[in-house]
């Protein structure tokens, strides 16, 4: 079920209500059950698969912790290898032929075999295995704790990707569910709904027609704005999801790290990636980039360049097997590598000019680069993306007025930009704002909640008057 659906609201409300009333010892068991129901809702067999997968990794981790030397390494690589193979089966459909041959004759479509959000709990499980191997984290001795870590429903299908070291210790902690703690979570959830249903979805359907018929948009500045629109939509959509994820977690008594920390307020590409999709970037940083960098450290500058390109290309292809995603990742890797190369010269330059000027120019450059590179996340293949960029976006002859864009587009873009800025400020000061908010005196608090709810009901992009927009990251 999509997070911004009526079904999910009812599901979450019931889950939180029952959870709050249960004794401490039963809370996490109930949470496992609720999470499995969530998976079951999507595909009936998914709970079976995820439990089996969790059992496998659980026992492999126990074995790894007990072994030494080469046996330990073999176990680790086997466990990780199994996950990678499954990932290739589910994401890149390498076994589609064989699977079809087996199930199609029975009238079954192979699509029902693919579980929901595998790449997310795969990342969680693999990070756990590596941490146990490196002794960064103690192996988990209770299967129910490990299972909860894997199936935890607020992180289903879109993350954030929490680490066992951050999540598991919270399971046994005493959970005090109070009106205050629920309010704190509810505020975030309401904010997420507000962002997604009114702005992200509306923006998405406004720009969609231009992407389905690329030549209708006109050239020059029009495409630049449309691509900027996509970048805003992506941020509002994904950060809204995370808000809901973190908010529901707060209501359940779990603290989850947010995936975004005002990413557009950055001055360089590496800095941007430290604040965008944080859980994925830090996962790849810790388990791919840093080890690779360490192994290649004798190569001087290339010790950072090669791992950067590999890591970001992986980010790209993790999203999907198209040339567009590959291009996205590769370009980002290249940009990070370039950043490493020019770091020293940039520092010198920074000393020579006023800080405000340097930062402003950096910000503008970063924004332009992001608008162009993120275009590849929206188009079906690299060729289309390059086409748009070279033939349309940089058609300087048309950089006068984006006349094919409607007034509605401009208004929604402007409002979305304002929302993005507000959202950024809130991301930087979440705790302060939440504290201030829940301290609001009674009628005012309810008025704000009612205003937000009715804003979503009245201005939201849902219902028979519109097309439904799925969360972008849901298929991953």
């Amino acid at each position, binding site marked *: 079920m999509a997070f911004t659906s*009526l079904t999910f609201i009812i599901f979450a409300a019931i889950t939180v209500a029952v959870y709050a009333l249960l004794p401490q010892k039963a809370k996490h068991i109930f949470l496992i059950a609720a999470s499995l129901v969530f998976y079951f809702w999507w595909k009936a067999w998914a709970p079976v698969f995820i439990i089996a997968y969790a059992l496998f990794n659980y026992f492999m981790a126990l074995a790894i912790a007990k072994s030494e030397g080469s046996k330990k390494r073999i176990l680790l690589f086997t466990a990780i290898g199994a996950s990678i193979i499954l990932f290739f089966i589910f994401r890149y459909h390498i076994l589609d032929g064989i699977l079809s041959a087996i199930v199609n004759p029975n009238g079954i479509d192979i699509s029902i075999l693919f579980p929901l959000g595998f790449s997310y709990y795969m990342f969680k499980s693999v990070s756990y295995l590596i941490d146990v191997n490196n002794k960064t984290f103690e192996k988990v001795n209770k299967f129910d704790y490990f299972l909860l870590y894997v199936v935890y429903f607020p992180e289903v299908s879109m993350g954030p990707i929490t680490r066992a070291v951050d999540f598991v210790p919270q399971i046994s902690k005493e959970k005090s569910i*109070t*009106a205050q703690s629920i309010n704190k979570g509810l505020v975030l959830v309401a904010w997420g709904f507000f962002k997604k249903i009114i702005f992200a979805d509306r923006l998405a359907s406004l720009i969609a027609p231009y992407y389905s018929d690329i030549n209708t948009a006109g050239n020059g500045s029009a495409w630049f704005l449309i691509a900027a629109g996509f970048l805003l939509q992506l941020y509002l959509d994904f950060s809204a999801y995370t808000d809901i994820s973190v908010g529901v977690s707060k209501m359940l008594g779990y603290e989850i790290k947010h995936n975004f920390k005002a990413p557009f307020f950055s001055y360089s590409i590496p800095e941007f990636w430290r604040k965008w999709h944080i859980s994925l970037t830090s996962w790849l940083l810790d388990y791919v980039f840093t080890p690779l960098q360490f192994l290649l450290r004798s190569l001087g500058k290339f010790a950072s360049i090669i791992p950067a390109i590999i890591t970001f290309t992986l980010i790209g292809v993790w999203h999907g097997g198209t040339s567009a995603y590959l291009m996205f990742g590769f370009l980002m890797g290249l940009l990070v590598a370039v950043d490493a190369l020019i770091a020293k010269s940039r520092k010198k330059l920074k000393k020579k000019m006023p800080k405000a000027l340097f930062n402003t120019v950096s910000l503008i450059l970063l924004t332009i680069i992001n608008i162009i590179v993120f275009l590849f996340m929206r188009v079906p293949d690299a060729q289309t993306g390059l086409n748009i960029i070279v033939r349309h976006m940089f058609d300087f002859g048309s950089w006068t007025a984006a006349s094919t864009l409607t007034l509605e587009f401009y208004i929604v873009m402007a409002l979305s930009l304002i929302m993005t800025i507000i959202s950024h400020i809130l991301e930087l000061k979440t705790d302060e704002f939440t504290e201030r908010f829940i301290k609001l005196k009674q009628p005012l608090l*309810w008025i704000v*909640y*009612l205003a937000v*709810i*009715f804003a979503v*009901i*009245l*201005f*939201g992009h*849902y*219902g*028979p*008057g*519109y097309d439904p927009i799925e969360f972008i990251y849901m298929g991953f």
Partner: protein
Amino acid sequence: MKKIKFIVKLIIFICIFSVLLVSVSYIVRPQSDMKDRFAGFYSEPKDTIDAVMIGASSVSPLLAAPYIWNEYGITTYPLSTNAQPAAGIKYIIEEASKSQEDCLFMVDATMFMVEQSSLMTEPRIRNVVDNMKYSFTRIRAINEMVEDKGSRIDYYFDISKYHSAIFGENGVKAEDIKYFNFQSPSEYKGYLFVEAVDIFEPVDLSNITEEKPIPEDSEAELKALMDYCEANEVNILFFINPYAATEINKQEHNYIKSIVEQRGFSFINFNDFYEEMDINFGKDLYNVNHMNVYGAEKFSSFLGRYLIENYAFEDKRGNEDYADWDEAYIAWDKRAIEAKQKTDENLGKIKKR
């Protein structure tokens, strides 16, 4: 103690939210003559309406309730929607009966001459259910008329559809706040003024006695309606509205008359009374199925007399409780003069062609 306080607060919040949701939904419903008509009906005081007329769009410019009031002192009210699906009739009856317990229901049976499948489309179903107040009656109406279970939620909560149009052409205006409880008096007691006119050749239907069957699904709905009326002791009169009917149409009217009278229900075909009503086919209609204000006056006058002669309705003129009906007539009459002038102009234009 804290838990109970929280739960109580939560329940109160949910109640406030629900009430607001209902009000906002009513306000956001698109403005139309149907909304005005139905919201006007709901604002009528309990047990003050003598007869309710249910039908399709023909009824709206036909029943001049203020005119009948002025002549006879009886209260009538139209509850018609455009292209009314027959399945909705019993729910309108049920709904209206809540506030008007013993009233007579006049049902325009021309609805049964059309295949129901063409009428059971979203816009037409919504014309009925989205002009009703929220109630179990409405829920049952939706459940019967909307086949796809998954879509029903968008009907229960019609705001999910209409909120997308609040800024549009037919959007919400400040004055629409009056619909917060879906009760707002209709200036002309539900009458819809039209200023169009067209010229028709009258057809003598008096000798047609043959019968021609109506579509099967419509006949089934007619029988279901009669079952409902029997079971609930509804005071019902089936009729055919006066229009430029053809001989074939008359045969279908006869078919309906047979079915209905066989079950012991009353039936009247106003197409048998062109002379008595003094219908002028060159002036009184605006298209084949609909009359204009001229036709409405003549029909309403005839209907009023028919009701006085056949039913025990009291003449309530002079009764203080019905003062708003006097006002409605004054307004209606004033507007009718204007409408007649425009109609005459339009007639002049047609004749020149």
